[in-house]
């Protein structure tokens, strides 16, 4: 096994590898709430509303969905036919995710869109031992493409939490549809 400290751009066959850099807080914003509602239900007009779940409703949602209700406040976009788009947030292992779920008036999921994905640990990386690794480091390669295309590494737990959130919101819709 060969180990090398690489501080310069390294050409390795068909790929070029840049130097190591500390991760700063990483966030991706994909769309606004209104854009998400329009993406899920392209032909509908929406009214933004807030709902508050009563304690009994919270208990019932938790019981039927098997998921914890972290906040009784709900932010929704409501169409005249009672199709709804919920705006909700979940925490993955190290990621904070804002997403939208569209639920049709018959209680089925129409679509899910991630609105914002934000890693929560980037700003916490400040320990001395960690800093020592970057003595003499260069900045990231100045070579940039004009398209800013970044990769996203594994997010399986985040996806599971979003899916659990969708399940919770399906049951929540059941509880609030009489009030729509």
């Amino acid at each position, binding site marked *: 096994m060969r180990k090398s400290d690489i501080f310069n751009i390294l050409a390795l066959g068909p790929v070029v590898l840049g130097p190591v850099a500390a991760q700063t807080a990483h966030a991706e914003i994909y769309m606004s709430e209104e854009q998400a509602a329009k993406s899920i239900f392209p032909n509908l007009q929406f009214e933004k509303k807030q709902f508050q779940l009563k304690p009994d409703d919270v208990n019932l949602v938790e019981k039927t969905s098997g998921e914890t209700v972290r906040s009784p406040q709900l932010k929704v976009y409501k169409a005249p036919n009672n199709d709804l788009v919920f705006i909700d947030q979940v925490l993955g292992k190290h990621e904070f995710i804002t997403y939208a779920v569209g639920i049709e008036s018959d209680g089925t999921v129409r679509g899910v869109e991630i609105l914002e994905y934000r890693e929560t640990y980037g700003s916490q*990386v400040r320990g001395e031992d960690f800093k020592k690794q970057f003595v003499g480091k260069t900045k990231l390669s100045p070579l940039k493409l004009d*398209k800013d295309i970044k990769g996203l590494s594994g997010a*399986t737990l985040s996806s*599971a939490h979003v899916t659990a959130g969708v399940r919770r919101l399906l049951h929540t819709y059941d509880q609030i549809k009489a009030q729509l």
Partner: protein
Amino acid sequence: MTKSKRNFSTRCRPGLGTLIRVQVDNEELIEPLYARIAAIEALFNFHDPSSELRRYNDNTLIPLSDEFQKLMSVALELRQLSHGAFTPYVMEQKGQHLADIGSAVVDFGGLAKGFAVDEAVSLALALDPEAQGFVEAGGDIRYFGQAEATIQLRLGVPPQIMTRELRVAGDFMSVATSSPGMAAEFGETSTQLREGIWPKGSSITVVAKNCMLADALTKVMLFGGAKEFAAFRGEAQALVFDAEGQLLESGMS
């Protein structure tokens, strides 16, 4: 159709047990791409009782889809070439011997994400041959319609994350990454229980000509090392990083 100015749309939705990102300069491709990925998920979801994979594993006699036959034949070929470092058999993924257990239950977890990405890209180009962008499923990404691309590899173990830019070009536009952060997150959704041969905290990135191969070869490198990776001559490159993001191995197959 000539596009003088490219206006990219990006979407991120849950799917395949992870998050699926699609970026493309033709918004009309977004729904068909996600639909294709959903169709593949319906076939190969290990935990879904109605999936083709589950019914196969339950010994239900069913005609197998073209996709299933393709993945099975690719998986078995990879298993042979890698001497079992890659395997679709769940018992072997857990470190046991197939012959001892006699269970032929399979899981395409080491292939299906990459395959879904490839299928989505093929569909994008079939619908719009001039389309540009990428499709990504939980760390497996494939670019299309462009000569080169740069991604940010995220290495190390959360919360100590380092980044390194990786530029790919030409035919090698598929990148798959297997990292401890991802392994920790897989948990019960993955059947893999074998220990890899690299130090704790290592990440493996494979660059290849298609995403299914890149995905599968991360397992070959993880469990078989450079020795087994060498069998895939000329088709891929593997980069192994330690927990500090330093390069341990850069095997060109």
